[in-house]
């Protein structure tokens, strides 16, 4: 069964008014477990709206959105929060760490909201931080870390609850090339371990890391293809 199923999703802002915006205009998509998907589009293409709906931060105006076999398109705030807490880890362009909390406390936060006890929480958070190579920086505040390190903390936070889906919204947008490569490699390795990774980006180069790229324009999917290089790798791998 598909992990994510979107059926004819519409998202309309200010419906019926002069400034009506059809951010998503009938998008249908299925994503299988374990995929590395990039949503590529320029600003205004609807990719942010796509990510909000896929990430259960928002609900569509019309259409069905299924995670597994449960319809999440009509849930209320608290139910959406519950889904986010259980199924989705977020990585943002601006890292979005809480500045008053240490790296460890930031990573622990999603576990707090899942009511995981203090000792277990700490252990899981430290594991996640070691996975991103920051086990020596756990007591640093975000302001004491570089951009790349902050983004790695954010990744640790996203994966600390071991969610099936990780959503990354322009994760390298604020980073230099080297840090960008590090972050993308991390996401790729995450995907190799079985996590479904959904990358939202405007940058075709970054999208190269994904196995499948869908391109959005004016709220519609204009292209959906499995990346050739990746296909080559996959086929090559299979051939050997």
């Amino acid at each position: 069964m598909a992990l994510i199923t979107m059926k004819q999703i519409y998202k309309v802002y200010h419906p019926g008014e002069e400034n009506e915006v059809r951010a998503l205009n009938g998008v249908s998509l299925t994503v299988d477990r374990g995929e590395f998907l990039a949503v590529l589009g320029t600003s205004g293409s609807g990719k942010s709206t796509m990510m909000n709906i896929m990430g259960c931060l928002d609900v569509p105006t019309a259409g069905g959105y299924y995670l597994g076999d449960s319809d999440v398109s009509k849930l209320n705030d608290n139910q959406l929060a519950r889904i986010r807490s259980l199924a989705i880890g977020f990585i943002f362009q601006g890292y979005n760490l809480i500045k008053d909390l240490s790296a460890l406390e930031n990573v622990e936060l999603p576990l707090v909201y899942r009511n995981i006890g203090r000792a277990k929480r700490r252990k899981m958070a430290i594991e996640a931080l070691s996975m991103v190579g920051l086990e020596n920086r756990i007591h640093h505040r975000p302001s004491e870390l570089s951009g790349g390190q902050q983004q790695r903390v954010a990744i640790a936070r996203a994966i600390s609850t071991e969610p099936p889906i990780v959503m990354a919204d322009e994760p390298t947008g604020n980073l230099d090339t080297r840090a960008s490569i590090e972050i993308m490699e991390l996401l790729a390795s995450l995907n190799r371990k079985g996590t479904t990774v959904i990358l939202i980006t405007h940058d075709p180069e970054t999208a190269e890391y994904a196995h499948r790229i869908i391109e959005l324009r004016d709220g519609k999917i204009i292209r959906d293809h499995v990346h050739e290089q990746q296909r080559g790798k996959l086929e090559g791998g299979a051939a050997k």
Partner: protein
Amino acid sequence: MKLGQSFSMAIKSIRNNKGRSFLTMLGIIIGLAAVITLVTLVSGVKKQFMMSFEEMGTNTVTVEYYMDQRDISKEIYETSLELNEYIEAYTPNLSTYTEVRQQDKKSNCRILLGSESFHICSNYAILRGSMFTHDNVLSADRVAVIGSKVKDDLFNYADPVGRSIRINGQRFTVVGVFEEKVGVGNYANNVVLVPYTNNRLLMNSPAISSFIIKAVDGDSTGKVFAEMQNCMKRITGNDWGWWVSSENQYIDFYNEQITTMSLMGGGIAGISLIVGGIGIMNIMLVSVTERTREIGIRKSIGARRLDIISQFLIEAGTISLMGGIVGIAVGAFLSLILGRILFTETKMILLPSVPLVLGAAAFSVLIGMFFGFYPANRASKLNPIDALRAE
């Protein structure tokens, strides 16, 4: 969840905004200090009143006749007999100032003339020796019980019992010493009590026209009070020229005054607490606005509305509890100082009571939570997408 987590977040947030947090607390500090000081002060004043009433004796009715030089002791005695079941003790109550001598020492004292029940009616306790007897009264013996100041002035540390003093040149034998009355000054201790039957010997106007009657309890006091009024009306045929009063009347009156004072003070203090609470609401609203992005982050990683509400409520409660604790300390300190200034004579130490302190602390938390609810609720309703976009 997460109470511990929310609490440590609250402490962090307060520490990161020290100046602002202190200003927020200031309202609560002032409000609670005012409440604590006022309540403590009023209870001190009340205690002081009660103490001085106790000195005079509770449940007493005083009867005075001053229309002319008539002796009304027979009528009062008869009325008292009729009211026997309501009355614990009864005494004539005359007084005059005169010089008292003991060998070469002399002192100007208040001479009290009463019955063997005088000490009961006026709330004196015998420290040494004994009260004079009914027989002493009947035979107008020249015996005296002296107050603590008279003892100090005339006898220093010697035991006065059995010794003699001269009042108006007449020799009296001291049979007892009253315990010192604390809290009412020297007036009550600079006294010499002798049997009222010495009235002709000591008084210029010997008519027995003043009495103190002690009723068995508060209810009886009312009955005695009313009957004595009737008796005086009967004797005089008038509403004037006499005076019947009851200590309980005064106590009721003062209690009423004190209650009015408490209510007024409480009202003012209450207003300052509300103002403090509004200060908290204000700052929490600022805090919610400043931390919109943080709220967005928390929501995106799984915080539910209740999680956000409880975080901000706990923060508000913590701020106001901290303010409350400081306010209580300030209030206790002010009470102590005011007590020193106001109650110099009794040396009463004025401190807030334990229930008051605990109540005030709990109340400060409630205020914080109450006024913190609106901002907290507003924070919890933020849309995570908009909140994440905020700078």
